[in-house]
């Protein structure tokens, strides 16, 4: 018989307000095996933990039940507490009487009754707990970063700084991500390329960092400390080693009518291209959708002009495998498609642009060489209307339900830059709210209004009508209580941002969870913001939620710190709750082997003692505890009931069922 101690936590008033903690501890004291029962204001505090440890020693407890918050919160805390007092950490069970009781019920009587039942279930389980010892598994000292934008680059640099190998997998031909397309950054207005490109070069030159550009993650197997990743290197039809990045081919290619995606289709490039001058790696790539040679076998100009002999039309996609201890997701974001919002005439007029397109039109390396010109006729615009919250903050069926966070600030930046460069332009910004919670952000916005004379109007644009070379904007001015009609030259839409389309399939490969908007979820929204709930998977940048550059970089470094913390260890403690077969009952049917997602089960021939002093050789299952993750699929598949899961055994769960139904 176990000697069990019950500790009921008040959690201040969080539990005590709807659960009579005194009664709970008194009633549970009557349960068989309970030798001590008490309650305390904050069980997780220093004093509370000491109380548990003292009681363990004083009453010779062999098992502990803590009635408190969710085990996802403090199970580890209490296990450590008990371990220090000399009992096995797996002799502790938590009854979740906060998240699953006091917080969801208002009636104290109901809450108390339920808390008692939950406590009983935990006690019933502890009776059947056995001390468990965790094994260890080695850590591969190499990290994978998926996505080579500013988030991925920063994470990789920080991990490499600590002395670990890092691979960056980037689907585009160059690293750099969205930040390469941005002109200036708020609120300091320094040039994005000037602060980003040195980092790109650092990453390329760092011995510990290996960049796989134009590559994608094909599949992921394994678990924390030991992931096995297959990477697909897409055919770029150019030998990366031989190519010197001279760019001659990109000038001679006769296929000139390829939309330049780096400039968001605002101008054209050739079928063989280097995205931009500072690309890393600076290697040409052939766009197979447009290349005449690849499509019809007639051309070959690039191959003729290439003195390095780097062009290879026969190149195929390559696949290779690599082991990693940790994986960082940094897949970033994209502006949404605007076909649902054509009241702004985005598809009808080239002068209606998204904010990212506007960045290119302002950028010295952009299609207009940095002079702001209308895409339709190349004239200077004199009246520019900015519209915020396009597709953000919507009802679910109308768009994205969240605030895209960065739009208020970049719109203020755009408006300010327009007025600064071209003081003769009238700039209107239509807003619902101006949200500027960041260091020096509100000051920046106020400067746009006060010093730069940007017209901020509380209201929305309802309709844009392209007519006679103008954009007739119909909008509301809520504070002026009037409808406005503005003849604009350009309309700039602050389109909502959404996670990259590769994020969802990647999450499935990683078994990392996502929210309903396809942003990756973090292990804890406040306390573990850079870890995914899946061990060994970390989150960096906008794949976790909309973020500006400073936040992205901060999160990227935080993710790196977590990765370093993991890679520093030589071994990881495994989950001790693994499957274990009872060899005497196992009949060697292989049912468990077939369902195991990790291949942790093998079969061995073993000698058993038979009747009349004979020896029998039987085929029985064997579980590799370092590989088993403890899902329990095999325990249910086993027809003879030989397979059981430590920590969640059939007996334990049934004891809980009994206690609840009693």
């Amino acid at each position, binding site marked *: 018989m176990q000697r069990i101690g019950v500790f009921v936590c008040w959690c201040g008033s969080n539990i005590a307000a709807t659960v009579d903690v005194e009664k709970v501890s008194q009633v549970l004291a009557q349960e068989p095996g309970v030798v001590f029962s008490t309650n305390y204001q904050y069980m997780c505090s220093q004093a509370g933990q000491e109380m548990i440890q003292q009681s363990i020693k004083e009453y010779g407890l062999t098992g502990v039940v803590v009635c408190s918050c969710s085990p996802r919160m403090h199970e580890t805390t209490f296990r450590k507490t008990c371990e220090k007092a000399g009992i096995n950490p797996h002799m502790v069970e938590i009854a979740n009487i906060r998240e699953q009781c006091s917080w969801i019920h208002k009636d104290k009587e109901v809450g108390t009754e339920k808390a008692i039942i939950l406590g009983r279930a935990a006690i019933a389980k502890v009776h059947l707990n056995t001390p468990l010892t965790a094994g260890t598994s080695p850590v591969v000292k190499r990290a994978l970063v998926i996505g080579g934008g500013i988030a991925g680059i920063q994470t990789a640099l920080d991990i490499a700084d600590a002395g670990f190998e890092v691979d960056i997998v980037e689907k585009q031909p160059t690293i750099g991500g969205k930040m390469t397309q941005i002109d200036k950054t708020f609120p300091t207005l320094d040039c994005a390329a000037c602060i980003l490109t040195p980092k790109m070069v650092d990453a390329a030159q760092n011995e510990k960092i290996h960049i796989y550009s134009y590559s994608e993650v094909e599949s992921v197997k394994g678990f924390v400390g030991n992931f096995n990743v297959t990477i697909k290197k897409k055919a770029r039809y150019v030998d990366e080693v031989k190519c010197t990045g001279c760019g001659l081919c990109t000038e001679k290619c006769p296929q000139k009518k390829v939309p330049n995606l780096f400039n968001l289709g605002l101008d054209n490039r050739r079928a063989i291209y280097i995205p931009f001058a500072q690309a890393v790696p600076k290697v040409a790539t052939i766009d197979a959708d447009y290349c005449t040679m690849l499509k019809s076998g007639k051309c070959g100009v690039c191959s003729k002009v290439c003195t390095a002999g780097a062009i290879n039309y026969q190149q195929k996609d390559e696949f290779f495998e690599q082991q990693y201890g940790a994986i960082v997701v940094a897949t970033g974001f994209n502006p949404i498609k605007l076909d649902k919002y054509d*009241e702004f005439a985005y598809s009808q007029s080239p002068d209606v642009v998204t904010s990212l397109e506007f960045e290119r039109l302002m950028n010295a390396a952009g299609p207009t060489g940095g002079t702001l010109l209308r895409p339709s006729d190349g004239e200077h615009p004199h009246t520019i209307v900015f519209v915020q*919250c396009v597709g953000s*903050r*919507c*009802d679910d*069926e*109308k*768009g994205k339900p969240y605030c895209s966070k960065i739009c208020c600030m970049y719109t203020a930046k755009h408006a300010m830059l327009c007025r600064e460069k071209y003081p003769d332009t009238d700039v209107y910004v239509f807003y*619902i709210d101006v949200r500027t919670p960041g260091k020096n952000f509100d000051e920046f916005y106020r400067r746009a209004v006060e010093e730069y004379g940007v017209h901020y109007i*509380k*209201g*929305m*644009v*309802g*309709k844009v009508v392209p007519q006679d070379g103008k954009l007739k904007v*119909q*909008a*509301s*001015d*809520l504070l002026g*209580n009037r*409808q406005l009609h503005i003849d604009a030259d350009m309309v700039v839409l602050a389109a909502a941002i959404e996670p990259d389309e590769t994020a969802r399939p990647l999450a499935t490969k990683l078994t990392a969870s996502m929210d309903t908007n396809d942003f990756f979820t973090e292990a804890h929204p406040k306390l573990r913001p850079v870890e995914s709930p899946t061990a060994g998977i970390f989150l960096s940048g906008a794949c976790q939620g909309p973020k500006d550059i400073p936040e992205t970089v901060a999160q990227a470094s935080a993710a790196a710190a977590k990765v370093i913390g993991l890679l520093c260890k030589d071994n990881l403690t495994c989950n001790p709750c693994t499957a274990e077969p009872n060899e005497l009952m196992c009949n060697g049917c292989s049912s468990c082997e077939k369902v195991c997602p990790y291949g942790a089960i093998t079969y061995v021939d073993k000698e058993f003692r038979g009747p009349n002093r004979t020896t029998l050789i039987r085929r029985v299952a064997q579980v590799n505890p370092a590989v088993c993750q403890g899902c329990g699929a095999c325990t249910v598949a086993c027809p003879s009931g030989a397979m059981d899961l430590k920590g969640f055994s059939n007996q334990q769960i049934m004891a809980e069922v009994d206690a609840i139904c009693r």
Partner: protein
Amino acid sequence: MVDFVKRISGVNPRKCMKCGKCSASCPAYDEMEYHPHQFVDMVETGRLEELMNSKGIYTCLSCFACVERCPRSVEPAKLIEAVRTAVVRQQDKTHLKPDAIPALLDDELPQQAITSAFRKYRK
């Protein structure tokens, strides 16, 4: 009365985030003394009397531009219709009397226009 308007329109004015998209889209804006966004707010705060006496409720074209474009799916047109319905259902509150029709006709006016107006303006 507010509950009645909310019930027959099926609109929850609490969903409104006061962005002004409806008033920006409305082609009848200048014909109304209370504009669509105010309409939603006035229903929410219970200022129905003013709305019911407003001429603006007869100028809504039911073109559904506000319904289509509202980012929060508030559907202001349904509120306006509900208030108008509440008015014309009262005794002697018919907005368009059959006697007035002949004077408004011309040779080309389609039946559809008369039927529509009748459905909108009287019960």
